[in-house]
């Protein structure tokens, strides 16, 4: 039995779960729904594991499975096919694995929901997993696009899950529309691919015999730059890069497990997947890579700065996600594709964990999200505290936690490419360490600053919620060891080696400034030490803050208000759009176009009224007009020929 024949089941099972939960949401009990939802993902996970083991077999080559022709006429073909290779396998594991954990967690977290809401929630969540799987399994960009938009849709549905509150709906809509900007770029890139190469399937595009490597021999051709930039537009929107990041913090309006799954672990990393998937294309367009690196770095630092002053536990994590995604793009931009994927993985672990733990906190605090209203939770929420702490260490880049290794790989690649990237990257990493420990400190240490009622209510979450935390915490600790730097041995970077077939063509093309092992060790230790110092500083600084937060003046105020980016967007895009729309509706359409149309009608009416006056009822004037007409016609006939 070849697992490849069953691969279709991996996405179809969640889809089945979605349909059953969705259609039967009023009939099924919460328990059934929860079990069904988790079970389908679990089976998918098992299949993914099987697939993964298939891919690590020696002699494995990329597998393309054709199901049917989605669109076919003349020489235009969009097959519905799946492609399985190492990259897919890694992503499959992340999606189904973390997805499963979060499903399990959700059964506890969403317990308060009504039967209907619970079913709907799991249905959407399953649909999301389906879309995400479709995205990574796709064998061509069109099918990937289906998953791509599918996850946007699920994100939309889940952010606006509590649809009675228009704030949630607005956030959902914002997320969807911003993603659509990226989708537009994605689509254009697909068209460009079809126009230039006649296909959008990976296999014909990226093989070495007759793919684009042979079609585009020089770097930086218009085609390569255009397509890669457009794809990056898609990736930037999905992965919340400057300037399209603002939807992600707002997306925290959804239930916390959703934030963990969609807005931390999986969907937002689809952009990285896209770029990694198209790495050959990007390698052919170094110009685009530079832009990616710059934008990634800028995002990383910018978001980290904003995160410094956020008071909402989820907002901090959200900006942190944006920042981490920036790192991933930095990695991609400097050509360290596998490092980026590695960071995707570790980030999935620790950020998923952070969100789930935050969820646990919020759960315990009965929905309170302001960290200044918390404090001292470590006593009541033991497991949550420990797991949260581990995750903080991981994200702050404290060795030997997973984040350290993945971030380090990116940073060293950045150093190789351009030391300035490295310096800025490290600065960002230190900011990360600072705000994470500020968060940790404010939340868990010190005195409780909330109401009595909340204090009374404080409790550790049920096991269905804590177990996923524990599992993720373990992964966050050990996850880094599959990608140890070369310093620790010839084949220490297991993940890198595993993924190398995917990036082999790029490796050939990229001009790599390798750095010596010594330099690398020095760099590693510098970052590690700095991170630890910052962590300790931040943790202590915020042990006992005032309840109402810090001063909101000056720079701090600006940062707290996220540099007013949303307001600027509103002023620059949304409001003018609305004004133009009203102008079209009330002026152009009514006054101009309809004015002309009605004007013609009025003109006819007016001329009718005027012409009627010729009919004066007097024979004399009739005769006179007749004679005048005669004279005119005579003159025309005789003198104007």
């Amino acid at each position, binding site marked *: 039995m070849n697992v490849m024949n069953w691969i279709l089941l991996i996405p179809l099972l969640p889809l089945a779960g979605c349909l059953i939960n969705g259609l039967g949401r009023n009939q099924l009990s919460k328990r059934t729904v929860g079990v069904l939802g988790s079970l389908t993902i679990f089976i998918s996970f098992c299949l993914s594991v099987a697939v993964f083991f298939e891919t690590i077999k020696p002699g494995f080559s990329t597998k393309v499975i054709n199901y049917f022709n989605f669109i076919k006429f003349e020489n235009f073909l969009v097959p519905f096919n799946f492609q399985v290779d190492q990259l897919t396998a890694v992503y499959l594991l992340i999606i189904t694995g973390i997805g499963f954990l979060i499903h399990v967690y959700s059964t506890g977290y969403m317990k308060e929901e009504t039967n209907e809401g619970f079913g709907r929630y799991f249905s959407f969540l399953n649909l999301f997993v389906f879309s995400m799987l479709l995205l990574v399994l796709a064998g061509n960009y069109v099918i990937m696009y289906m998953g791509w938009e599918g996850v946007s849709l699920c994100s939309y549905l889940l952010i606006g899950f509590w649809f009675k509150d228009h704030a949630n709906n607005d956030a959902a809509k914002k997320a969807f529309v911003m993603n659509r900007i990226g989708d537009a770029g994605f689509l254009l890139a697909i068209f460009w691919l079809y126009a230039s190469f006649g296909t959008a399937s990976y296999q014909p595009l990226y093989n070495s015999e007759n793919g684009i490597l042979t079609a585009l021999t020089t770097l930086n051709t218009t085609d390569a730059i255009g397509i890669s930039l457009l794809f990056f537009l898609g990736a930037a929107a999905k992965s919340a890069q400057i300037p399209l990041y603002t939807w992600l913090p707002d997306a925290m309006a959804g239930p916390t497990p959703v934030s963990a799954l969609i807005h931390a672990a999986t969907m937002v990393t689809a952009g990285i997947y896209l770029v990694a998937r198209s790495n050959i294309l990007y390698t052919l367009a170094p110009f685009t890579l530079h832009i990616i690196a710059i934008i990634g770095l800028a995002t990383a630092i910018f978001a980290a700065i904003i995160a410094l002053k956020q008071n909402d536990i989820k907002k901090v994590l959200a900006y942190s996600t944006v920042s981490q995604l920036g790192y991933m793009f930095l990695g991609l931009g400097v050509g360290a594709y596998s490092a980026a994927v590695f960071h995707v993985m570790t980030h999935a672990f620790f950020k998923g964990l952070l969100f789930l733990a935050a969820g646990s906190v919020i759960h315990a605090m009965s929905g309170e999200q302001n960290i200044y209203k918390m404090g001292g939770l470590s006593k009541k929420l033991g497991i949550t505290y420990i797991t949260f702490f581990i995750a903080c260490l991981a994200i702050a880049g404290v060795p030997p936690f997973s984040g350290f290794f993945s971030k380090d790989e990116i940073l060293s690649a950045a150093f190789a490419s351009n030391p300035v990237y490295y310096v800025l990257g490290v600065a960002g990493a230190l900011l990360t360490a600072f705000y994470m420990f500020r968060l940790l400190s404010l939340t868990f240490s010190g005195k409780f600053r909330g109401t009595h009622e909340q204090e009374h209510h404080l409790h550790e979450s049920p096991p269905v919620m804590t177990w996923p935390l524990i599992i993720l915490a373990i992964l966050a600790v050990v996850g880094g060891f599959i990608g140890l730097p070369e310093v620790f041995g010839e084949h220490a970077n297991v993940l890198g080696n595993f993924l190398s077939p995917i990036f082999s063509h790029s490796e050939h093309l990229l001009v790599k400034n390798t750095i010596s092992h010594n330099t690398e060790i020095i760099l590693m230790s510098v970052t590690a030490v700095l991170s630890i110092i910052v962590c300790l500083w931040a943790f202590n600084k915020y042990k006992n803050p005032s309840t109402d937060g810090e001063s909101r003046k000056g720079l701090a105020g600006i940062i707290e208000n996220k540099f007013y980016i949303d307001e600027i967007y509103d002023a620059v895009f949304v409001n003018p759009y609305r004004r133009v729309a009203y102008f079209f509706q009330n002026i152009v359409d009514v006054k101009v176009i309809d004015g002309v149309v009605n004007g013609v009608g009025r003109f006819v009416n007016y001329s009718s009224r005027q012409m009627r006056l010729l009919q*004066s*009822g007097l024979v004399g004037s009739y005769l006179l007009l007749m004679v005048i007409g005669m004279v005119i016609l005579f003159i025309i006939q005789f003198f104007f020929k």
Partner: protein
Amino acid sequence: MEIKWYLFLSLALFCIGIIGALTRRNSIIVFMCIELMLNSVNLLLIAFSKMHLAGNNALSYTMATEAQLFVFFIMIVAAAEVSVGLAIIVLMYRNTKSVDINFLNRLKN
């Protein structure tokens, strides 16, 4: 005489008739002006009849005869028209005690 004088004479009469029809309001006079127009046509036809006689052969005889008979028919029609026209004018006079063409002005616009 040259034909042009007859042509111009009858055109002059014709146009005088038209001017009369345009300027007068008494319907009987307007009608008389129209009769004047018809008469100018008659005159012209006779003149043309004589003009076509220039060939002085059987064909030109026929040609000339046709015009003279045409004039005869015009007179017939004119007579019929006059009887009807005057009847209408009298009818109107009976109803309104006026022969002004602008007196009845209900049909307009």
